[in-house]
């Protein structure tokens, strides 16, 4: 499924967001740290670069500036996961839903990053969107979804993980499902699920 990223994040680009002109983004501090390929920026570094304006991450994601790379957008999605914030959750949920069945290879990369981010900050509300990706045709997406469900620490994730664990045949995904279940099982047991 093809999707215009601008439409995707429109809901999250609230009135406080500046105009998304790609050309004004030439290597801001935020872009610079998002260009790092061998480390995950800390939340403190992101907050400093964002100067309190989380929507700047969405501007990067939405940018048409050719200097904004695939890797930077993926890291921006992942960075959103470090913020327990409604704007971040909304953007990630939108991406996880919209890119779910995409056959565009870049959108699949963004999907995996968004899944991981949403697992980080989404909590129980994120479980349906994440669980829907457990049946993705792409094994990397299924594995990411399994681990993200565990990261939600939500008992609601127990059932979809168990169900998929009985169906899954790919060894990599099977292992990810088992890792996820091992992590979340105490919460499942505690909640009686």
């Amino acid at each position, binding site marked *: 499924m093809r999707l215009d990223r601008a439409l995707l994040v429109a809901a999250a680009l609230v009135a406080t967001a500046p105009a998304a002109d790609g050309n004004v983004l030439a290597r801001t501090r935020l872009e610079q740290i998002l260009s790092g390929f061998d480390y995950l920026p800390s939340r403190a570094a992101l907050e400093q670069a964002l100067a309190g304006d989380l929507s700047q991450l969405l501007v990067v994601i939405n940018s048409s500036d050719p200097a904004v790379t695939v890797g930077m957008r993926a890291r921006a999605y992942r960075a959103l996961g470090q913020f327990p914030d409604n704007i971040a959750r909304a953007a990630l949920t939108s991406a996880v839903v919209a890119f779910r069945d995409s056959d565009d290879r870049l959108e699949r*990369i963004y999907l995996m990053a968004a899944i991981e981010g949403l697992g980080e900050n989404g909590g129980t509300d994120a479980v349906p969107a994440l669980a829907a990706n457990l049946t993705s045709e792409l094994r990397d997406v299924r594995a990411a979804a399994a681990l993200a469900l565990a990261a939600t620490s939500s008992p609601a994730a127990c059932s979809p993980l168990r169900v998929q664990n009985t169906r899954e045949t790919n060894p990599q995904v099977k292992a990810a499902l088992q890792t996820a279940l091992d992590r979340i099982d105490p919460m499942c047991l505690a909640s009686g699920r």
Partner: protein
Amino acid sequence: MAIGSFALGCGGGGADVGESCATVSDCASGLQCLDHICRPGCLANIDCGDGRVCEGHTCRLVESAVGDGCNAEADCGPGQSCRLAIDVFVAGDGTCEREADTGGVVGAACQTDTDCRVGACALGRCTELCEVDAECLRGFQCVGIPRVSSDASSFLGGYYGCLPSRATLAFDVPLRPQLSQPLIIPVVNTATSLVVVAEAAQADERIGVTAVTDPENQPIFTAPTTVSEYFAGALRHKPLPGVAVLQIPSTSAVALRAGVYAMTITSSADRPEVTLEGRRVRVVEKLGPGATLDLHFHFADLTDHPCLPPERLLGPLSAPSDPDFQAAYLGRLRAIFAAANIAVGTVTYEATSAPVELEGLASERASELFATADDDRGVSVFFVRTISPAGLEVVVGGTPGSPLPRTGASGVAIAATALCNNTDPSHRNEPAWDRLARTTAHAISRHLGLYRNREPEPEGAVDPLVDSPTSDDNLMYWGEDGGTALSTEQREILRASPVLR
């Protein structure tokens, strides 16, 4: 000790090589009469056999008695070896002892002197005592070796022994059941780099070096207690979970010196019940220059990877003949390292033997992947499907990584998702090999001991190099915009790495 006379000389008779003789006068010119057979004149002691030395192209029998003093293997007669007293200050002198019936020959692996048929055990290799290079086997040279007690606690003087001219030698240091242990590490006078690899028994257990004093008794390192202390130190190191690696030199500000280094190894300071017993500390010394980088690619199953075209397979069978992998990727890697006068040598391709779940690699579990690296030399490069946190394109085992295989720091991992990271719209469906080569070279250089030229966090921290290049066009810049430039000192640090041969 005495050099006995022998039936040798300048010849002039008619007997050719291999024919019998009574004296040298029976042999043709240029030959010697040795063991009643005419043989070519010798060039080195090794040509003469045990208990004989080569002097003026002729072999002379050495006469000595057990117990005679000696400075070199050449001082002892047949069936004897010049050996050092164990755990006694040696001051360069040994004693002719009866040669052991068993044990390793010169160059064989050893842990103690008793593992060797002759001489002594130094840097994990059996060595003969010597005075000049000509007394050593070909490919070996006579080097100054600090003598250390068998428990690595004391310096016992120095001696000269035959060690390989070019080699990377590794040896275990004995550990005791205590939280912290001082160690004396010998560094020979031909060493170009020293690496200490400390391994914990559990992945979550910290271990590492907490203090270092150089051969001139100057403290050169104390474990940092804060992040800023770590980045401010000329010699960067800190105890880490699982495995920690210390490398000298990692900057010209802390040059490697021959002699003994005093180090303190410490296990988890926060867990008093954890001692060093059962842990492992190995010392690696690179002898002589060596600037060949072997690369060992280990591929996860990349079938149906979103960043590879559907018809394209990338794995151990296809990579050796894949034009992009060979030309655009490996070719650029070769060019980047050639700028440091490092040649890419042997390149191997294998399917990874790591557990399948590591095909999607969680960075916190990367040590499990690197522990599967069984390549004795060079760098193990693991191609995995994805790395999390998402957006990471590489994970390194450490800066520096371990030059030894099968440790949690024995390699670098590359995410195949990085092949999607191509901004050129005209190549939207083509993997970004060129960019990936630069990313891989950056990771390998960290494995070899180079730090990021400047750190993303804390902002303003720079590497400990004296010529400190902080520009984006440097290979060690951490961002996608980085270039491939290397400073003079960066090139020197790379070339000193014991990963190279």
